[in-house]
């Protein structure tokens, strides 16, 4: 079936980058045949830690070399296509690097802008003598697609967090969508959060853009296909422990991580089934979920070792006034479970 925005969710589902590219290889080739060109990507870094670039380099199947030599080359006849601009891996530095960015702006084929890192107030991040805000604004004005990767570029992340002593954020950092609205650019940003962004999420999104398909987004700009399900409710392998009321409270125990502060119940991401680093593991297998796929991270999810029910900054209000929205529903769910646990324990006691 031909991929479209409407059927994207159904068709792509939990597909990894490898399965996606295999399935839609013919469509990709066809889409590329029209123009003898490669895919023009400009990857900008703002207030970033470069973790998303490194995460992208952990892409397993296809790996980085395959992406550059097979996926992005399009029908250009080139043996390899680098992003036109990408500070961390590009061959060119200095003046030539900036010239290549100008060339990206003038390319006739679809221009994809990828942004890593938050956008700050003026004067905190300069590249080639120009503020990052200006670099971003100019690129965003002409880009056909804008993809924000990682927590910082999507929602401000840690650079946008507030100190807990009442002081303001030191550099006024925010996500790309918010910045674009602020400067009057009315374009949709595809948000791929998580800290760092998952390489599969990046590669599948890029490939679908090449097919001309913008994945269906939720109200926070995230592709529903990756961020449409609650990890705790629908995907977590430790869920059976939760249902039976077996919780870890001390290091070294085995059970559900809820009481040590796992943020799975308020986090929508497919990490639990997609896993990380070539399907090796994911956070909850070695510790807890800290909620990095959600807007408002890290502040609303801190302290990371506090139970969801005890978070002081959730929804921007004190814990005592929580009662509405997603979290409210989740908490009611937890309440129901707590009752069930009691029942289970009673039941067990009777058996003994």
């Amino acid at each position: 079936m031909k991929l479209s925005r409407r059927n994207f969710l159904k068709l792509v589902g939990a597909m990894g980058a490898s399965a996606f590219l295999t399935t839609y290889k013919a469509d990709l080739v066809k889409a590329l045949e029209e123009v003898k060109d490669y895919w023009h990507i400009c990857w900008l870094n703002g207030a970033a830690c470069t973790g998303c670039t490194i995460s992208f380099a952990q892409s397993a199947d296809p790996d980085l070399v395959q992406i550059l030599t097979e996926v992005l080359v399009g029908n250009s006849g080139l043996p390899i296509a680098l992003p036109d601009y990408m500070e961390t891996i590009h061959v060119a530095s200095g003046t030539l690097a900036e010239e290549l960015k100008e060339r990206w702006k003038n390319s006739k084929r679809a221009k994809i802008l990828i942004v890593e890192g938050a956008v700050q107030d003026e004067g905190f991040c300069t590249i080639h003598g120009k503020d990052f805000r200006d670099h971003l604004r100019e690129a965003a004005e002409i880009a056909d697609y804008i993809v924000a990767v990682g927590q910082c570029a999507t929602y401000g992340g840690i650079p946008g967090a507030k100190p807990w002593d009442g002081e303001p954020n030191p550099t006024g950092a925010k996500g790309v969508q918010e910045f674009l609205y602020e400067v009057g650019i009315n374009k949709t940003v595809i948000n791929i959060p998580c800290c760092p962004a998952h390489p599969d999420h990046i590669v599948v999104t890029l490939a679908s853009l090449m097919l001309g398909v913008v994945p269906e987004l939720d109200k926070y700009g995230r592709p529903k296909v990756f961020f449409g399900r609650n990890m705790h409710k629908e995907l977590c392998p430790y869920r059976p422990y939760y249902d039976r009321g077996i919780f870890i409270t001390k290091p070294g125990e085995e059970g559900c991580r809820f009481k040590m502060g796992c943020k799975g119940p308020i986090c929508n991401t497919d990490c639990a089934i997609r896993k990380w680093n070539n399907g090796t593991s994911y956070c909850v297998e070695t510790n807890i979920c800290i909620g990095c796929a959600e807007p408002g991270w890290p502040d609303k999810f801190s302290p990371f070792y506090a139970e969801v029910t005890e978070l002081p900054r959730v929804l921007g209000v004190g814990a005592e006034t929580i009662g509405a929205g997603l979290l409210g529903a989740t908490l009611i769910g937890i309440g129901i479970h707590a009752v069930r646990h009691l029942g289970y324990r009673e039941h067990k006691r009777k058996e003994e």
Partner: protein
Amino acid sequence: MAKVWVDPITRIEGHLGATMETKEIDTGKMKIEVVDKAYSHTNLFRGFEIILRGRDPRDAFYITQRICGVCPAPHGETAVQALDHAYNVTPTPTAVLIRNIIQAAYYVYDHLIHTYLLVGPEIGIVCKYPPMVPPALGKEGIRTLGLGSSYAQCIDIQRKANEIVALWGGKFPHHMSEYPGGVTVKPTGDRIAQTLTKATEIWEWCANVALKDLMAIKERNEIVSERLSELLGIEHRAFADIGASWGNFLSYGIFPDPENYEDWVRAQDGEASFRRSAVIHSGSWQNGELKPLERDKIVEYVKYSRYKDEISGKKPWEVEMTNDVVWKDKPNAYAWAKAPRYEGKVHEVGPLARMIVTYGLNWKIELTNPVTEESVKVEWSVMNPKGSVIDRVASRIVQALLYATKIMEWAVQLKDYASEYPIVNPKIPDYKYVPNEGEGWGLWEAPRGALLHYTRIKNKVIANYCCVVPSTWNLGPRDDFGNPGPVEKALEGCWLPNMSVPEVCNLLWPEEDVLGMKWGDALANAISPLGLAEVNLEYVNGAKYNTSLALAVVRSFDPCIACGVHTIELKVRK
């Protein structure tokens, strides 16, 4: 004579620029332009320590990893060591081994990706060594010319190293599993077995490909030296003669011995220490003289950094600093990084510092793979006692192999320890526990050099947090006395040829033996369609400056600007 400005410097982490003032020197055979003075511009500021104020102290493990996505694991480790110290607990031997495995696997990835993807290309090009040149001709070029063969394989191997990190840490970048007094991940048989399998493959690649690449580069560098000396009319040992800094090297040590953790903690307590029980020792090497590390000899200067002068010359953790101390438009300041000094002297930190402090100037190391029982002997005599591009590359490759060996030794050891010791010190009662008060230092090494975290806990939250990170040591600006930082010093004297990269290559390698062409012409054919014919060239008043060698010098320090410029220390105002 001219002011050559390169910004952005790519293939590093973060936003870095450099200004180089040149001078002309007459070698007797030709007039060349070399760098007279250099200035390192660190161009980003985020204010991590401000953001940490008032938070749960344990959040620092997660938040400080996000200082840098290239070296998150060492930041997390250092944060946890500072927490151990502040909690007054030691990690159990099982936990020490697991932490060591995570960090060592992480190191292998970092050293390899830096060697091949970041610093390697210029070295491969100048030395006419195709495996280390990026695969500009794609898969066909890899097959026929070996162009980028090691580069492409490195991507696969670094990924496998990170799979080991993910096994024990949930994911990479930003692993999850360290905790005050230990770890939160269990040493299962499955994890140990998978670690051994992956490490074996990594070890073989390091021993059979990376080490051979190093030896090939060394050999070809000798040919380049002969031809360069002939060309310039002065003795020039190519990559062994560029990138010398001050001859002072500082290391904090890494990979503690689980059986001798008291030795490790002494340095954190502020005692003079060599940490000789660890795999890599701590100490300050000052042009041949080795002294033990003393924590309190570290100070930071800010005359040329964008902070108010009143904080200059103090111990980083003693500075009372608030948002008001940031001075965005400070006149004459040219960097966001500060200038840390040890015993008042400029010190280089990083892979070469670790090797020199631990092994001196001549390294003879025999490494046996505990799984296959294969052995390799590594020998290297430091070619320039003040540091050079090639010595730094050698340090990374040797350490990648050393740590790949250690991962397996520790994984084998872990099998016995796991049944004997818990994963967290039993003094930690549960996940609710945070001490009311405490103060701790973490002293560790990121791949790019010495890393310090300091945390002070008051009323169960962070009252003050401070990081002194490797790229402020290496990439920082001049100090209050005008002494240039290590990279600024290392750029001095570097030749900026007035020719393009292919032209330089044609001069150094006149043989027509690459597809019937000279090396430079073959390169030009490969890179021109990618729009890279003018790579590394900067023009000043119509004159051409090739910055390849200068960029190799900067990259040989493995700059990580996100680390270097996050820094700002704070104490809660009373």
